[in-house]
């Protein structure tokens, strides 16, 4: 029997946290939600998620800096950045930092599913 997949979400907006929790719950994925990326590295190294969902703008450290920290620490977990920022420069910055995929908000659950499915497949 394959182990349950785990997702770690970094998102500070309470409504989006709830939406993402429901989204993954429906798909039988264990979800942990954090409101900021300050302690991202020890969290990821301890929790061993199969996928990380990262918001671009968070209090304290922003999503791109958090991704840079994770990649510098040797974390190779796929990271999907979910953000309302759609400017090409921001997308390029995120991809340079090591983001695996980039999705803009408001999010369509169908598109989110297509984006995360490859990383959560058994």
């Amino acid at each position, binding site marked *: 029997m394959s182990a349950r997949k785990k997702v770690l979400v970094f998102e500070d907006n309470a409504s989006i946290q709830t939406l993402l929790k429901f989204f993954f719950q*429906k798909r039988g994925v264990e979800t942990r939600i954090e409101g900021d990326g300050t302690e991202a590295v020890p969290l990821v190294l301890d929790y061993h998620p199969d996928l990380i969902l990262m918001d671009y703008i968070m209090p304290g450290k922003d999503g791109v800096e958090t991704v840079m920290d994770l990649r510098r620490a040797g974390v190779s977990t796929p990271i999907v950045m979910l953000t309302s920022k759609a400017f090409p420069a921001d997308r390029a910055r995120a991809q340079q930092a090591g983001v695996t995929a980039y999705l803009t908000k408001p999010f369509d659950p169908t598109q989110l599913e297509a984006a995360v499915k490859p990383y959560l497949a058994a």
Partner: protein
Amino acid sequence: MIGRVSEVVAGVIVGRPSLGFVIVATIALLWLVLAMAAYLVVFRAYHRGRREYRSRRLAAYQPAIELVLMEEPYPAVVAALTPRLAGDGDCVQELVTENMRHLSGPPFETLRRASVELGFVDDNLRALRSWDRHRRGHAMERLGLLRCEEAVPGLVRALAREDLDLKLVAMRALAAIGDPSALPAIHAAAAALPPGLLPRLASLMLEFGAPGRDAVRELMNRRAADFPQVSIPALLKELAQDWESP
């Protein structure tokens, strides 16, 4: 009696108040402080209680959002969103529009359809004419989130008559709805905006797509000197889309 009062007042005026006056004044001040403290305690307790009640009512309807995300049948969604207590209508609207802010695709359309069926659109259209400024502002914001095309005439009127803050709310709502017929009115309202807000206005206009880009070009030509220099490169990049090869 009047003579006694006159003596006391005279004493206060010359800086030599009587002991009796000092005692009475001190007691009166203490009562005043106690009354203000009691008012603050009651005031805070009332508002805390109100916030907590509202949070509980919002939580009662949260399962409806779960039904939407789990693609449950539409009648079940509507039933779950139907207000059950007096005053719940506003809570449900807040829950629905807050979630619509973050969703697109089928879940957004389900919530929008339910909002129309539950009368939220009509409520907010009526609220555009409310005497209460806050109600008008909330209504504008919600009509924008609901992408309510019927609200465009009311929002355009708001651009002409409301203060600056509500003008901006109306502009955001019109940009969210995306009806290009509102662009001339938005352009006209730009005359009242201070230069610092012009980049924000231009960003809103860009949400209308190609007609919005035309409007931004016109705005930048007309008020070129008013646009902050730092905002111009990003705006020009957006406008350049029309010259990129297909």
